[in-house]
């Protein structure tokens, strides 16, 4: 029995204007419930892949379907969490969380219900009336995640959301993110530079290569959910982190060797 894939790339290529190919021969299928991390050297097209799924930019060639539709038609089923929290500074936390629903014309009473629920999920129920500048970096990111959750998305696209945070905050938010997913069961695409983060969160890690951006290796992460602090201490977790790191290093080495401006001694 086959499941209907939630995202399907078939031989997708992408270039911006007359520039070089950012993605080439990109083929990949995500099933509902997958937590997929994209990791790779800068310029390998990780963020571009996310933007294509979100319909923020069209594919140059090949086919991409999201929830059985074209990306631009599938907007209602996905949410995006940017690298920065991108909160509106003039709105308090509650109103920020309600923005996506407000844009879709959801009545105020229903918005307030959802807002209370998602703010509780990210443990910021007591910050509803605070303004973004009164929050720490980690708190702002949690508001940003709450805002994405408010739409009850089938698909969450996260573009290095915790990249600017310190290690401790990042680990806490990783655990929180998985805990929330236990309750909501969305599919996730997660761009990151941290191997540890990718392994901890995902059931599939895509290691990408650059020039042009493509999938180099897919690593399956067989660790059982729910994953907790304990998971990070396990032998299996450490072996997986080591393996993904090794692949990533070889990819980065290869892309340095392949780049034309470098000459080997």
């Amino acid at each position, binding site marked *: 029995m086959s499941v209907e894939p939630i995202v399907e790339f078939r031989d997708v290529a992408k270039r911006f204007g007359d520039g070089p190919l950012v993605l080439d021969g990109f083929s990949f299928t995500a099933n509902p419930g997958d937590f997929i991390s994209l990791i790779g050297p800068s310029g390998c097209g990780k963020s571009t892949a996310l933007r294509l799924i979100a319909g923020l930019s069209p594919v140059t060639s090949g086919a991409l379907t999201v929830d059985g539709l074209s990306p631009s038609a599938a907007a209602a089923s996905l949410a995006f969490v940017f690298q920065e929290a991108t909160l509106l500074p*003039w*709105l308090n936390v509650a109103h920020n969380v309600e923005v*996506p629903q407000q844009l*879709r014309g959801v009545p105020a009473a229903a918005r307030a219900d959802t807002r209370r629920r998602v703010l509780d999920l990210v443990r910021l129920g007591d910050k509803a009336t605070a303004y973004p500048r009164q929050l720490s970096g980690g708190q702002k990111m949690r508001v940003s995640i709450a805002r994405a959750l408010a739409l009850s998305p089938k698909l969450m696209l996260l573009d290095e959301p915790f990249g600017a945070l310190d290690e401790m905050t990042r680990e806490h938010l990783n655990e929180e993110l998985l805990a929330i997913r236990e309750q909501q069961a969305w599919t996730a695409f997660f761009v990151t530079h941290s191997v540890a983060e990718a392994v901890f969160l995902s059931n599939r890690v895509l290691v990408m290569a650059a020039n042009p951006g493509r999938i180099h290796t897919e690593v399956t992460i067989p660790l059982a959910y729910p994953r907790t602090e304990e998971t990070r201490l396990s032998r299996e977790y450490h072996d997986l982190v080591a393996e993904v790191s090794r692949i990533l290093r070889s990819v980065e080495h290869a892309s340095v060797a392949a780049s034309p401006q470098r000459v080997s001694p």
Partner: protein
Amino acid sequence: MSGSDKMSRTMLQIFLPAAAGAFVIAVWYAIHFYLNEEMRFLLPTPAAVVDALSANRDSLARAAWNTTKGAMLGFSLAVVVSSALALILSLSPLVRTSLYPYLMALQMTPLPILAPICVIWVGAGLKSVSLLTFVIAFFPLVVNTTQGLISTDRNLVELFRLYRAARWQQLLLLRVPAALPYFFTGLRIAATLSPIGAVVADMNAGSSAGDGGGLGFQAVIYSSQAKYPALFATAATTCVLGFILNAAVLLLAWLALRHWHDSYERTDR
């Protein structure tokens, strides 16, 4: 910051301007009495100015009211028209390059040259004064508001695109609030220029018909009658008008931006 530190800083903020004021008045008196007796009319003492203020309070109050009317009418008109025009200018760079040169031309023409033209069109008095004040206040408003409307954070624009916001939603919920700090910068400049504009306009296009003369008109009269203390009193009245209008704008900006804008960041946090 501790409570006593804060207290001593507040004291300093009151004490220093007061000390500076006292120093200026002392120097003022010193210059007055340093001058030969027959030249002292050039700089009347502060006490003489206060006397003149009190002796001419009826005519000064009437003139101040007329100037306030002209300044407020012109200022308000400038706010409305510049906001509408800024919306149009923010649509595209092409619209801006097409229209900016003509807006600049209007700003470059000195008021005393525009004044007689204005009088031919709408007649001397309040109408001319408001119209000329409008011209003066208009430019900083339209430039700042337009800049604000086109400077929206790219990430936020992307967010609105992602959620498929309609054009009007993007304008009302994103671009307009993001432009507010810029708008208030323009508003503050306009609030400073408006009373000055109204006074200069009054000198060049005012009318005393029906007690309609403003502070500019009054200054011309006192000057021709060599009533120098009264002339200084007129200057002081104009300053007070400017201060009040500025304070009103600062209050509005504070009400609109205090929660979120960095310029109102509390330093004691």
